[in-house]
């Protein structure tokens, strides 16, 4: 996935992060063995928080708000 983004010339770092997070959740859902043998709740909460922050920032930009200190 990362290689595909690099080859397509994607320059927004939050795209890399958010897609990595999505791939993580999809993979651990499709492969239940991982969740059966591990406890990934803390990691889930952290990644959901990061993903939510990215989405919030982008939605705010679309609505015309800018959050000082964060790169566009």
């Amino acid at each position, binding site marked *: 996935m990362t290689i595909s983004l690099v080859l397509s010339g994607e320059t927004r770092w939050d795209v*890399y992060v958010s897609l990595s997070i999505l791939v993580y959740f999809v993979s651990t859902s499709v492969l239940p063995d991982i969740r059966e043998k*591990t406890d990934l709740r803390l990691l889930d909460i952290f990644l959901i928080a990061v993903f939510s922050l990215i989405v919030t920032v982008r939605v705010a930009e679309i609505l015309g708000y800018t959050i000082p200190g964060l790169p566009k």
Partner: protein
Amino acid sequence: MDNRFVTLGMIVIVVSIGFLVYGVVTGEPVITGSALAMVILGMVFTAIGLTYRDPLTGLLRVYSGILSSGLVKVYEDLGLLEESATRACFNGNLVHIVFSRKPVECEGIKPGVGVKSGVPYISLAGEPLSTGGEDLDTAIMRSGLAQYAVVMREGDTVTVDLRGTPFPGEPVGRRPLNLYQVIVPFLAASHYSSNIEVVEEDLGDDYYRAVLRVVGH
């Protein structure tokens, strides 16, 4: 915990942070983004390594909890070592492994020592174990209880044949309680959500065979 995954995760994180710093300093967003994606990958590996649980751990926890219970001493004192009837009683919230000289009905069985219809029994209780939707023989093999497991059900009769059992099998009546005498009826009761009667049992150094009967709730 699996140290290999932790090590791999930490290496990926360290290398990715190096690239991240380089990407930020040089202002290359592609490198920054790729490095962040690799940091997430490293975090996943580290989390998997830190929280990995051997599938047998859950079963051994049940077994060791039962074994360390003082009730096991009473089991020995009741003379159940030489000859006993075994039942697994399922009531939804708990599975009771009941040992008695003669089979007793599951209704009204409580944990500990008791008497039912004039027959003393000892009951060891634990929470039902989920097989995760798998067949019982698959769950047994995945848990590491046996290398090969065949579980066949015909009507109310369940035949269990385990080969390559890593835990030493001792003939019925030896101390301590054998793992398979406790865990197999326990698993069967959890899987079928029913009471289980152990009709026959045979243990050896690397095998365990049993004929179980599903006797309903």
